[in-house]
């Protein structure tokens, strides 16, 4: 124990002796871990968000098509669909998109549906003349509870709503760009036909019957399009379109890693380090003692930069919105108003990053040292 403590102490003083080299190494290493962990955090977080979207999504949505495009659906279709065996309930939804010229963002405007298990962070569900907004909208328009929000369409269509609630970040992708308001306000604003809805949410009692029900609806009402949950997920993936970006980022990370190891290998053990190992051997250090020393040296550098890089990556992704990757991920940052990712940390990921970074560093330090340490110490007698 005492022995290890003294060797550790010596390892620290050795690191300090070569502080510029080690600092440079530490810095690059931290950056590498930061990039890798950012990628992992981002990927994982987006995946989790997508999964949330998936589980929150209705089992079946029925839209009406006219001329191949999404059109409003007559409310009398609801009764017809409800009569299909296996259908538990049909619920009309009213929603639309709103382009906000002020913040240049696209918002989703919808009425409250029982299906959406959207918790309010604060406030209540909106009545007539009121609305609840997602976190992204609130941030973009600098809104707080009791503030008033304006909507304009052209010159004559105007809507003034009092903000009564702001959505929690439980799933920020789902609620971030959302404005929830009362049905009357919405239909008036969008000048919708009173006898029509935007689409229907169809609840099916048995998961396995979803496709059968969808086929029956299609046959009964040929101008409708039933969309199952699995298709919605695919749509979301398209929206995020982060896969290409991720590949690029991964590539950059790997390139950086390669660069470090090439550099490390090229520098390898300096003559001075080799000499030092020879001296230690000659004055009675065993090979295992030298390896312990090198292990501690490598461990201190790689572990601290591992932790440092991890924290940096975490801050970068969850507090700075992964801004380094923005160019790669333009896809969703343009489509959606900016939103904070919800921090999800997976211990498994952390272990993967550990094995990708700390372990190769340990190996690349210890192996050359081991080679130097098993050589006869006599060479140092003639230096």
């Amino acid at each position, binding site marked *: 124990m005492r022995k290890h403590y*003294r060797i550790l102490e010596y390892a620290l003083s050795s690191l300090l002796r070569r502080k510029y080299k080690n600092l440079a190494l530490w810095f690059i290493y931290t950056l590498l871990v930061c990039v890798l962990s950012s990628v992992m955090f981002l990927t994982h977080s987006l995946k989790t968000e997508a999964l949330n979207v998936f589980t929150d999504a209705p089992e079946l949505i029925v839209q009406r098509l006219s001329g191949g495009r999404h059109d409003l659906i007559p409310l009398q279709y609801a009764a017809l669909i409800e009569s299909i065996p296996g259908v538990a309930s049909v619920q009309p939804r009213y929603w639309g998109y709103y382009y906000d010229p002020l913040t240049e963002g696209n918002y989703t405007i919808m009425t409250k549906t029982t299906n959406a298990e959207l918790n309010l962070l604060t406030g209540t569900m909106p009545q007539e003349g009121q609305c609840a907004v997602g976190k992204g909208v609130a941030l973009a328009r600098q809104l707080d509870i009791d503030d008033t929000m304006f909507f304009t369409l052209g010159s004559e269509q105007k809507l003034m709503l009092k903000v009564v609630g702001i959505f929690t970040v439980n799933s920020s992708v789902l609620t971030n760009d959302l404005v929830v308001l009362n049905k009357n306000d919405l239909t008036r604003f969008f000048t919708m036909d009173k006898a029509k809805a935007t689409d229907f949410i169809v609840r099916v009692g048995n998961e396995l019957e979803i496709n059968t029900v969808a086929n029956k609806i299609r046959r009964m009402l040929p101008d409708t399009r039933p969309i199952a949950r699995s298709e919605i997920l695919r749509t979301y993936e398209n929206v995020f379109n982060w896969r290409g970006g991720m590949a690029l980022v991964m590539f950059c990370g790997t390139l950086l890693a390669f660069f470090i190891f090439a550099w490390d290998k090229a520098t390898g053990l300096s003559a001075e380090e080799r000499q030092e190992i020879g001296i230690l051997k000659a*004055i009675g250090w065993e090979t295992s003692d030298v390896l312990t020393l090198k292990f501690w040296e490598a461990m201190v550098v790689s572990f601290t930069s591992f932790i440092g890089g991890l924290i940096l990556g975490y801050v970068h992704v969850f507090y700075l919105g992964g801004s380094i990757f923005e160019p790669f991920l333009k896809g969703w940052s343009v489509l959606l108003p900016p939103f904070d990712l919800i921090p999800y940390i997976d211990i498994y990921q952390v272990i993967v990053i550990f094995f990708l970074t700390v372990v190769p560093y340990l190996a690349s330090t210890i192996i050359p040292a081991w080679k130097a340490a098993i050589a006869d110490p006599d060479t140092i007698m003639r230096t």
Partner: protein
Amino acid sequence: MVSVEAVSKVYNAGMPDEMLALSEVSLDTGRAEMVVLKGPSGSGKTTLLGIIGCMVRPTQGKVLIDGRDVVKLPERFLTQIRRKTFGFIFQHFNLIPGISVGENICLPLYPTRIPTAVMKDRLHKILTNLDIQHKVNTEVTRLSGGERQRVAIARALINDPEMLLADEPTAHLDSKLSEDLIDILRRLSQQGKTVIIASHDPIVYDNHVVNRIIEMRHGRVVDHQIKQALL
């Protein structure tokens, strides 16, 4: 203590630059002796010192330390023997730059079970003996040649070895410092340590404190005189 029996050393065997550095060398040393290996450059002094100190493996022959042949022992045992039996003073001191005098001296004890308090205690005694206690926290590259020499000696003594091996210890010293050094080594030999010095410096080998002079040439022992009976 140590006896070397018909030891040969070939460097780079089988290569174009094959070199017979030692050829059938034998010698014996007793306890508390002061031995000088003398001879011109390239005669094999350093090589022989390395073989005695278990740092160089001989190509042939036996090296007995306290009656035990160490030639075939695995590296791990040799390290232990080096640590317990020998203190080595290298020709170029081989101190580790960037760390203090105290750290350099204590380095051989770091990987041992010796308590840190005992280590500090020994350090203090040795530094006082060698009169460099005021330099304990100085970085070694700031020391003068004579001071470095004493630090190298202190490091060789910290593990309380039975035998001290010194390679050209006066090479970097003026005659006054050389005399001081020999005085230090004489005191150590009087305390019961065997001292073996490789040197071609007359201040060393003509010194009256030397008991035994082994003269080498071309890797062979050409003369072996015992100048003075042990007390």
